[in-house]
């Protein structure tokens, strides 16, 4: 019988069992790395570095996991915080404008050829919309869970998902014609 996340967490907490934590990493690495790849625009190496940092931070602070949310939701929240810290440092190093980081690429400036690819369309969304769409539409989180991960109001998540989807639909419609 396969152990649940709760059983594995109990082993990590009670016995300090690193093998149990390894099993948790193996189970959750794909969605966490996928989310971070979306956030950093498919820079695979950077996304994996941030994912490693996510799991190491989760291990160090595992006693702060209260079981109020799913373990995967807790991991997404750590991943998002790791990404935000990275983005903040990057801004400090190269002096990227805050508005530029938020808005990132304007969909109008994207090469029309890239619109055929949904991943490129997704990557062209502003960060807050891209994150909300990735969590809710790709990773299957509810709006409530996404609000918990992103630490923003529920209404803001719904708005970001709706706006993101509208923009994607526009791009997809252009691709379909």
């Amino acid at each position, binding site marked *: 019988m396969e152990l649940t996340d709760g059983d594995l967490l109990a082993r990590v907490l009670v016995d300090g069992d690193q093998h149990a934590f390894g099993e948790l990493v193996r189970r959750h690495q794909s969605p966490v790395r996928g989310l971070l790849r979306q956030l950093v625009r498919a820079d695979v190496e950077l996304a994996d570095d941030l994912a*490693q940092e996510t799991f190491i931070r989760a291990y160090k602070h595992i006693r702060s996991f209260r079981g109020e949310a799913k373990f995967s939701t807790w991991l997404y929240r750590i991943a998002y915080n790791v990404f935000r810290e990275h983005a903040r440092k990057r801004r400090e190093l190269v002096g990227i404008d805050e508005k530029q980081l938020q808005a990132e690429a304007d969909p109008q400036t994207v090469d029309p050829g890239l619109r055929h690819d949904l991943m490129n369309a997704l990557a062209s969304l502003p960060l807050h919309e891209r994150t909300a769409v990735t969590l809710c539409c790709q990773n299957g989180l509810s709006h409530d869970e996404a609000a918990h991960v992103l630490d923003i109001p529920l209404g803001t998540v719904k708005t970001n998902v709706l706006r993101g989807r509208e923009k994607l639909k526009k791009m997809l419609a252009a691709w379909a014609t």
Partner: protein
Amino acid sequence: MNDPLDDLLDARLRDETPYIDDAGFTGRVMKQLPHRRVSWSSLRSFIILAATILSVVVAYFASGEGMFVHDAFARISGLQQLQLFLVIVGCGITMTIAGLWVALARRHETIF
């Protein structure tokens, strides 16, 4: 009726979420984990073992270098065969119950 573009978008978004192969990722994370600290359960076992050894040493010297053990064996050797059999069976049952109790308590600890 659903907007066909909504359906198309949902389907594409789901399809665009492939499983990312581990490819050594978990191993790299495990190598970077901080060394595990001594857990309370390990510390508890160590304290019990140390206390037991200390108690045996104190009892040995306090009882005239273990004469009570010699006396106990002498008493046991004087027991009838049936009495000896009952003592052995009693000890076996007690040890089995204690072992089971510890095993069940440990299993209970690991479940939320």
